[in-house]
């Protein structure tokens, strides 16, 4: 039953990629590694870093008694089938090893139903057609294949150039990620509230606004997404990531990738990097200052003064509270005094108050996610509906 020994062998067999010859350019100085009395192993971890095996009862500086237990501890219990089914609900993508993926449920949903759901539960944060909004991510910036081409955009040499577009259609390598996250994490204030068919419908709609196709067929406005079709989705950026993590023998490749500092922009003194001590900069080196004063809207404001805190104002500041807690969604949906409020106030303000305090399916968290008193919340609701501070 104890299979760990086999693993340990695999791990320690991963060695550093052949060390690169040190290029004697400029100022090479003696590297004096201090404090190397640690019990660091000569082996390299999967991340390219140090390993500290237990040697003489210590790992690095820590005492680590390795007690061989005579028998098993047998804590806890085996979960039953119902418990496993309740929690083992993750999705894994279709792959060579798993042609059906893992955990992808039966079900279906249409683009049409998805759009309706989206407009009811998602648009207030993610914007029209997934265009994004204050503080919430965009879901599309147009045609997925076209957006995918922007991933080589890099504002390194030209800060004014367009940057890469990293949204679902252009960047995400697997569609299972979208389905899984919608079901478990969305809508953000009310997660775990959608049916599988609703998740298929929303997925269909998001494929639609990303102008994607499945198996050569365009996900148009009449498209109905089923599990079978879902299994055939290939994302434009499916091969856009390194190192490879797919397949039955992926780990050696991951180890090799991080054993080479050049792959991830690192400098390693054992792989030819130089610890320059004198005259280390190019003549073109420039000091870049923060532009336009930089970002300063810190909460609370920056201060290092040691005085007694000001007494907190008890009075509700309507405008401030709106900006801090409501504006992110309400600026684009049911803004203060917006005419659309008339659709909600027909039964009087008490119903508006009650719904707002409880939270709504439309994405409004209970009391907008604030800890306002009922009275203060009602004042805020009055402001939202009327656009006027009383």
């Amino acid at each position, binding site marked *: 039953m104890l299979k760990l020994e086999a693993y340990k062998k695999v791990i320690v067999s991963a060695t550093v990629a052949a060390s690169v010859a040190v290029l004697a350019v400029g100022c090479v100085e003696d590297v004096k590694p201090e404090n*190397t009395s640690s019990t660091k192993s000569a082996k390299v971890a999967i991340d390219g870093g140090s390993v500290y095996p237990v040697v003489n009862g210590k790992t690095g500086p820590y005492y680590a008694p390795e007690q061989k237990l005579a028998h098993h501890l047998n804590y806890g219990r085996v979960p039953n089938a119902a418990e496993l089914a309740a929690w083992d609900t993750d999705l894994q993508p279709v792959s060579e090893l798993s042609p059906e993926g893992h955990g992808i449920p039966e079900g279906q949903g249409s683009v049409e139903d998805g759009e309706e759901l989206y407009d009811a539960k998602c648009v207030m944060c993610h914007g029209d057609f997934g265009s994004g909004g204050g503080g919430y991510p965009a879901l599309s910036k147009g045609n997925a294949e076209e957006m995918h081409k922007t991933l080589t955009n890099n504002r*390194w040499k030209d800060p004014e150039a367009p940057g890469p577009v990293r949204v679902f259609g252009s960047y995400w390598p697997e569609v299972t*990620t979208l389905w899984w996250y919608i079901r478990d994490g969305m809508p953000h204030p009310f997660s775990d509230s959608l049916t599988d068919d609703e998740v298929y419908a929303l997925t269909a709609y998001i494929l639609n606004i990303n102008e994607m196709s499945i198996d050569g067929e365009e996900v148009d406005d009449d498209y109905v997404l089923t599990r079978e079709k879902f299994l055939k989705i290939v994302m434009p950026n499916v091969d*856009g990531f390194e190192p490879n993590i797919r397949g039955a023998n992926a780990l050696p490749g991951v180890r090799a990738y991080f054993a080479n500092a050049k792959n991830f922009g690192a400098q390693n003194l054992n792989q030819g990097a130089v610890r320059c001590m004198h005259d280390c900069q190019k003549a073109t080196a420039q000091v870049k200052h923060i532009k336009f004063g930089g970002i300063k809207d810190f909460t609370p404001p920056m201060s290092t003064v040691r005085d007694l805190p000001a007494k907190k104002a008890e009075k509700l500041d309507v405008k401030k509270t709106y900006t801090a807690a409501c504006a992110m969604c309400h600026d684009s949906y049911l803004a203060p005094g917006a005419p659309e409020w008339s659709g909600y106030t027909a039964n009087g303000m008490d119903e508006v108050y009650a719904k707002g305090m409880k939270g709504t399916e439309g994405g409004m968290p209970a009391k907008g996610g604030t800890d306002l008193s009922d009275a203060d919340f009602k004042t805020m609701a009055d402001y939202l509906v009327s656009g006027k501070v009383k």
Partner: protein
Amino acid sequence: MAKKELQEEKTLARRDFFKKTAAASVTALAGTSLFAHESAGAGDPAIMNHTKWGQAWGDPVDKFHYGQPSPYEHNNVRRATSLLSSGNFRASIAVTPIHESEGIITPNGLFFSRSHGGTAYVNPNEYRLMIHGLVEKPIVLTLAQLKRYPSVTRTHFIECPANGGQEWRGPQFNSVQFAKGFMASAEWTGVYIKTILEDLGLKPEAQWMLAEGSDNSKMGRTVPVDKVLDDAMLVWGQNGEALRPEQGYPVRLLLPGWEGNLCVKWLRRLEFSQEPWYCKEETSRYTDLKPTGKAIQHFYANEVNSTVTSPSPEIPWTDVKEGDIVEIEGLAWSGMGTITGVDISFDGGKNYVEAQLKGLVLPKSWTRWSYMYKIPKNFQENGKQIILASRAMDDAGYIQPTIDQEVSVMGVEAVYHRNAVETWEVTESGKVNHVEIRSV
């Protein structure tokens, strides 16, 4: 003098003192000595006068059943900014005031706080941890059962890989709290996952472990078994007490040195599999897009890094003068090993000298470094304002890159894992500005 008169005089003097101190603390920032009045012979009122707290009962010992910082420390707090306010501050971050941090441990209340669906408040009595998949024996544990395993205690930092990630294209934050405070450090207590697996038996085809949280976002990440069988821990203790809710109470995953995002909080499930998962936060985010158009996924470790923490834009050198000997202090850390040395530069990285490490030097831990420095006239050397830079090395051989070196491979769109040398310019008045040195 009558007793009453004496008392009045004392009261007046004290009022005067408070006025003066208030004024002095303002002028001190402008470079005037707080002790200017000593030469006048009156003596420092802080010495000459009785104090409020020295002449009356203090609080009873049972006033606070859980102690609080001095009210005077109310500005030593986590801070947030609207730039990073996603999800109404529920998919957001509040950062650690590292300009006020002492030593290599962050107090639990100041530990940076990052969540993807808000801070969850888990009922420990309803806490369950399920471990299943490619194990010989799947189990479900209560919190009490988990804590029965033999525990280990380790000091490690946790760092958001986006620490400094807002500044790939240029400096934005004139603040060390925001430029480098997406991290904190604690002494963690928990159990090695390999200890539990000795009991459960891991199947040989297992390559990956899913760690899943129970929070609103069901935050999940895929972890290679190499780490699980090396130093991965399930922790319930933070600096001698239970984890704070912001740190995943009652149990979080701790992968020493790796992305904070991988250290899944409010942990409820570990599943072992032959194939990886593609969770949302390991593809849509937490991936480093290179100029080639390819992105690094599974970028595990926070690489070797350092910064000056004193002076800082927050606590500058406006109260020191030419000839003063001051300690320049900073932090160095590496998720890939143990810090072996730190070099310091006064010309923005053109020339370096060695700084000194101090205190405990532990693997994958914050490490303090120090350099005693004589303040030059107008904070200038060779006719130029000094620009402080620090460059750390670790025992895996890694050394911090320059910005040019890092950008030449990673471009400027990577968002995460930016560990290039940081630079801090000191102005003629002793103010400190965050700057970047670039040749491109």
